[in-house]
């Protein structure tokens, strides 16, 4: 691995990724609205992307695997957001709210 890229050690990027992930985790736990939880999921996915690209760029042999995987992560994040928001809109139409704790239609 490169010791540093442009004078920036890899641990700096990993720290930013860890911060972003934990902020997303915190948001996931305190938000009640389904859209707020979706926002937190996007934060956590971006933290993973930062780590993937960082490791891909810092390897001494040029490897594109990190970037290729990030492209797939972004694709699936878009898919997840589309389906999630469609479900949110459908639930809002049925129940007039999107409070994740009050959605109990599938509860026994």
């Amino acid at each position, binding site marked *: 691995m490169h010791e540093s890229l442009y004078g920036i050690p890899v641990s700096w990027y990993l720290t930013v990724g860890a911060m972003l*992930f934990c902020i997303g985790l*915190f948001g996931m736990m*305190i938000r009640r609205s389904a859209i707020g939880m979706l*926002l937190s999921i996007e934060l956590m996915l971006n933290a993973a992307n930062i780590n993937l690209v960082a490791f891909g760029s810092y390897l001494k042999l040029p490897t594109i695997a990190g970037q*290729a995987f990030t492209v797939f992560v972004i*694709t699936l994040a878009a*898919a997840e957001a589309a389906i999630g928001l469609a479900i949110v809109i459908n639930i809002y139409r049925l129940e007039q709210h999107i409070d994740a704790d009050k959605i109990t239609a599938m509860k026994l």
Partner: protein
Amino acid sequence: MHILGHMITGYQVAFVALAGITVGAAVGVVLMPNILRAALLLGATLVGVAGLFVLMNAPFLAAVQIMVYVGGITTMIILAIFLSNRVMKIGFSQAIYNPILAAGAAGTMFLFLFVTVVNSVWIKNAVNLEPNKSGVGVEAVAAALLQPYVFPFELASVVLLAVLVGAVVIAKEDPHDA
């Protein structure tokens, strides 16, 4: 530039600025009571991450990030917020779970990750500290997607088609309802 005896490069200044935008806006995303403002701040976070991608020699991913995340996903989320507008009143103050407990759990997780990152010994046999710019551009990504990763690439297109159909079916108005 020298600060406290340390050599500070312009790249490091850029990194700190971008990381500050990213993390600061992310805190706003989580804590903002108004969900619309939170969604707009998510856009700022995503732009900051795109800047970090540029610093990591991944310009193609930065462009993808801007186009798909900032241009697509953020817009979609804002539209969904407009379509379910009573949500905007649900805020941080109405969180039923203990926010202090949540902060403790997330903080512990961060501490664990941070200690792991700092104490890890990365293999450093680097002689040339110059970044290898060959093989990180758009051509390299295209070659990787169409040669070793062609199966996941095709699978992703199938997933996107399924999502397109699924989202329309789920969000479509029920004709029996109206």
